[in-house]
């Protein structure tokens, strides 16, 4: 419990060496996802596609929402029709459901990113403010990073023929705006902020809630923190 009350100190013990360095003028971006608030309306996935010109076909996403349904017999069903755009609908009859919840997914912006290690040309990298970016003019489209990503957060853009992924809306956050998905979320299930700024909404969210990252056993030291994460989530 002590560890959760002091998230920054907890992070400092982890592999996230960037947070240890004393760079007070440099932001370190991260996101919190509150699964207790997410209602699966899919507005974030829709806004992301509009803001970032993501192809409209239902298999290209920078962010998407999954509905997890645990049945009474223990079977876990994961659904994400069109990434949650248009609202998630429960297909399992109510009497069979043990529990049901929504999980928004996006790039976890790992500080030990497997995709960056896999890139043979240095076209994907971690920016000084902690965002994993793609150099579109330098990417050769080999898609090794798509295979390396344990979260499935990357896709091959069929029009530009290079890899595309969530950038935390890098053009917006540098203009003082929030990412598009955070902007439109009707229940404030996504919290965006600077991990180095102790007054930011994100640090307050981490202080209030016991948070967890996806696939912690992979030691990717990701910077997307989930509150209320169930063990069924893969």
């Amino acid at each position, binding site marked *: 419990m002590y560890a959760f009350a002091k998230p920054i100190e907890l992070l400092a013990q982890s592999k996230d060496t960037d947070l240890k360095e004393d760079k007070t003028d440099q932001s370190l971006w991260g996101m919190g996802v509150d699964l207790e608030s997410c209602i699966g309306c899919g507005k974030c996935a829709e806004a992301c596609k509009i803001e970032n010109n993501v192809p409209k076909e239902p298999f290209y996403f920078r962010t998407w929402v999954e509905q997890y349904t645990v049945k009474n017999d223990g079977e876990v069903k994961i659904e994400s029709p069109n990434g949650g755009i248009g*609202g998630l609908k429960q297909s399992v009859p109510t009497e069979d459901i043990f529990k049901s919840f929504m999980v928004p997914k996006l790039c976890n912006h790992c500080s030990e990113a497997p995709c960056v290690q896999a890139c043979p040309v240095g076209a994907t990298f971690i920016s000084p403010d902690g965002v994993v970016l793609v150099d579109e003019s330098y990417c050769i489209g080999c898609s090794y990073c798509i295979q390396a990503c344990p979260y499935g957060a990357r896709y091959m853009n069929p029009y530009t023929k290079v890899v595309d992924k969530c950038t935390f809306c890098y053009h917006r956050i540098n203009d003082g705006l929030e990412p598009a998905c955070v902007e439109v979320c009707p229940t404030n299930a996504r919290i965006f902020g600077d991990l180095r700024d102790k007054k930011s909404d994100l640090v307050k969210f981490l202080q209030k809630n016991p948070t967890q990252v996806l696939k912690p056993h992979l030691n990717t030291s990701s910077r997307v923190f989930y509150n209320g994460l169930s063990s069924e989530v893969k």
Partner: protein
Amino acid sequence: MNKYLSKIIFRLLFSFVVFVSIFILVQRSLTPESFGKYGHYRANSIEDNKIQTSFFKGEAECASCHEDLYDLKDSDLHSEISCESCHTPKIDVTTECKEMPPVVEGNIELCALCHATNPGRLKKGVPQLDFIEHKEGKNCIECHNPHAPWELTE
């Protein structure tokens, strides 16, 4: 014998120097500008990633013209919902609000995104309705004030 050896050594050294200088020249011409400034990537790419149009303008931009509607929405249950959650920007022609107003139809599909019954949304404080039961065939905004749906219009 010695004469041959020195000739061979000279040729080896000469070709070594030539190959190394060719390698350095080729590497320099192929390495893009600003590569390696912060790490194994093109530092100018950070600036490239910042160049993009923001289609979602943020609530402050909406409130600068529509302050009355913003205050009405902000007064109660929908205060956390930003304007652009429902008024998705129309980006086909322009991002200017005046030229292409992001008008939305207050139909059941829009409200059902959040308010349709789903077991995954229980106990999250969002009222849930069976929309077939609840006034079939009517648009929501015929009875509800779109910017303050907790109020009925008539």
